[in-house]
């Protein structure tokens, strides 16, 4: 049967045969993916309505174009698709099966390529037309009224079409029937199609506008950041009050932003360390990664140094860290000797030389910390004396002196950061490259967990704590174990 032949060969010889088979689904002739099974399924309930729409629309268009020239050649699938600019998007979606944006921004050329490349071999389990309904939510179209309309029209034609499949040809009859519905279809269907095209175009334009807006905002943001950096280096924010946003000074806000970015970088570095260790990289490659992690920490100390000039209290009170980190805060950051203590147990096995080196490092760090703490205490005492004032409180004078003393805080935070930096630099001198890589990974993970602990703590449910003292406390803790595992899963 001619039907079957066309169905099976698909694209190939659709040229001269088209005129005789216009009652057959034109999707096949046009090289669109319609499985052969559909041709045999006329009369069955399966997606027949959708198929009818396809037939109708195709039939309508073909009749319109019949007078002009045979367009249904394999050599010009593009022209065919262009007749239904709304359709290629859908087909493209189905063929590629990818993102929605692909559907919206149609390149008819690419759609053609996709279809022509796939029709040779593949037969989709579902008719692409039937997918119109499923993919309608992706589009900006209002499909349903059109579909319902078409179904009504289609049912008329399909009946004619069915009968015609049995007899060889009754073109004039079909034509007559077709012309009545054709007019109706022309008016409403074409308008609907045009509306849909319009809606799609508008949504594409809106999306473009939005993206452009985002891009320009991004550029503006980077420019603002640059201006901020420049102004800060020129000392405009030393007062701390200029341009204060709410309770946070601009210097603090800037630092918080930089710190957030540094945390993102930290994750990247940790991933590098982790994969480097797992991949058993050479020592020199691993060394590069370790060095870059040290530079990464050098960077945060540099940023803290700048922030210390504009807002020392923000740093020293730890407002830039999470609550759990703040709990262990020493002079605006971590305590180096505590960090080493944490590492010692996990760094085994160590050679005797290394053990000595590590313990020596811990000891010197403790001594330095002690010295700085005592110096800091003396500063505090001196400040208290100044603010309390003597028997005669000379306001302005005292304030000036106090201000001068406060300025020394910056020096202490800077020395504390210096101590932290030196400690981190010393570690790879004592350890092997692999040990150093593991060590830095441990450090990164430790603080990441501490930060995660903070967020879990903050988000814990509090209502149950009111009723009962101990039992509810445990319940809450148990409940929190589950979500907290997610926080640790990355580590």
């Amino acid at each position, binding site marked *: 049967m001619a039907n079957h032949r066309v169905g099976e060969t698909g694209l190939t010889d659709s040229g001269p045969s088209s005129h005789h088979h216009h009652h057959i689904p034109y999707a096949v002739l046009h090289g669109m993916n319609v499985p052969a099974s559909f041709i045999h399924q006329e009369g069955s309930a399966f997606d027949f309505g959708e198929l009818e729409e396809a037939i109708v629309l195709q039939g309508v268009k073909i009749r319109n174009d019949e007078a002009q020239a045979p367009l249904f050649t394999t050599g010009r699938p593009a022209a065919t698709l262009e007749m239904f600019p709304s359709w290629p998007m859908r087909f493209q979606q189905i063929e590629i099966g990818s993102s929605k944006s692909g559907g919206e921004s149609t390149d008819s050329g690419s759609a053609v390529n996709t279809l022509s490349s796939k029709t040779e071999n593949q037969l989709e389990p579902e008719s692409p037309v039937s997918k119109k309904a499923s993919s309608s939510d992706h589009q900006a179209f209002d499909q349903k009224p059109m579909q319902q309309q078409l179904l009504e029209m289609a049912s008329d034609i399909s009946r004619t079409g069915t009968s015609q499949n049995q007899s060889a040809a009754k073109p004039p009859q079909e034509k007559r029937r077709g012309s009545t519905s054709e007019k109706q279809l022309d008016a409403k269907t074409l308008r609907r199609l045009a509306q849909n095209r319009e809606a799609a175009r508008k949504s594409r334009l809106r999306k473009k506008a939005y993206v452009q807006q985002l891009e320009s905002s991004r550029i503006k943001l980077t420019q603002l950041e640059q201006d901020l950096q420049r102004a800060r280096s020129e000392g405009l924010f030393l007062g701390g009050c200029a341009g204060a946003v709410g309770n946070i000074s601009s210097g603090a806000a800037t630092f918080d932003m930089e710190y957030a970015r540094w945390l993102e970088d930290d994750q990247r570095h940790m991933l590098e360390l982790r994969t480097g260790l797992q991949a058993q990289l050479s020592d020199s490659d691993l060394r590069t990664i370790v060095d870059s992690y040290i530079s990464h920490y050098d960077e945060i100390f540099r940023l803290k140094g700048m922030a210390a000039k504009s807002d020392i209290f923000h740093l020293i009170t730890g407002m830039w860290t999470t609550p759990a980190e703040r709990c262990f805060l020493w002079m605006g950051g971590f305590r180096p000797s505590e960090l080493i203590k944490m590492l010692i147990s996990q760094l085994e096995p160590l050679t005797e030389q290394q053990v000595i*080196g590590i313990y*020596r*490092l811990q000891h*010197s*760090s403790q*001594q*330095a910390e*002690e*010295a*700085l703490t*005592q*110096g*800091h205490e*003396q*500063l505090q005492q*001196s400040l208290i004396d100044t603010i309390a004032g003597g028997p005669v409180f000379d306001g302005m004078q005292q304030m000036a002196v106090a201000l001068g003393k406060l300025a*020394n805080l910056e*020096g*202490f935070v800077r*020395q504390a950061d*210096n*101590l932290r930096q*030196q*400690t981190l*630099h*010393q570690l790879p*001198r004592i350890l092997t490259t692999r040990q150093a890589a593991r060590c830095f990974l441990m450090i990164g993970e430790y603080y990441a967990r501490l930060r995660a602990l903070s967020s879990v703590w903050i988000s814990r449910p509090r209502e149950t704590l009111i009723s009962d003292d101990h039992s509810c406390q445990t319940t809450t803790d148990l409940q929190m174990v589950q979500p907290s595992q997610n926080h640790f899963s990355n580590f």
Partner: protein
Amino acid sequence: MHYQGDSWGFYMPMRSMGSDPMERVVKLASESAVVIFSVSSCCMCHAVKRLFCGMGVNPTVYELDQDPRGKEMERALMRLLGNSQSVPVVFIGGKLIGAMDQVMASHINGTLVPLLKEAGALWL
């Protein structure tokens, strides 16, 4: 820890201490194993003093605010180090170590203790 006040000048009247404060600094620095130039009200100086005492070292401290030529020496020290802070400055065995920065770095990287031993300030 022992302090040298402005009485130093009285013991060596004939010696030309030099109008050059830097010369004086160097001279003083070479006379003890560990020399700290300090200002009595400076808290960072207090910290550096506590560091050495905590290590069992007995440094010689010059409080420049109590020295008649202290101001000049402070300026000289600032020029020497290129710092905005004149004090504290530490010399070990007559050699310049630096300000708090360098002292701490040296302690962490393990070079401070050998220097101290070499200068005879530490026996262990």
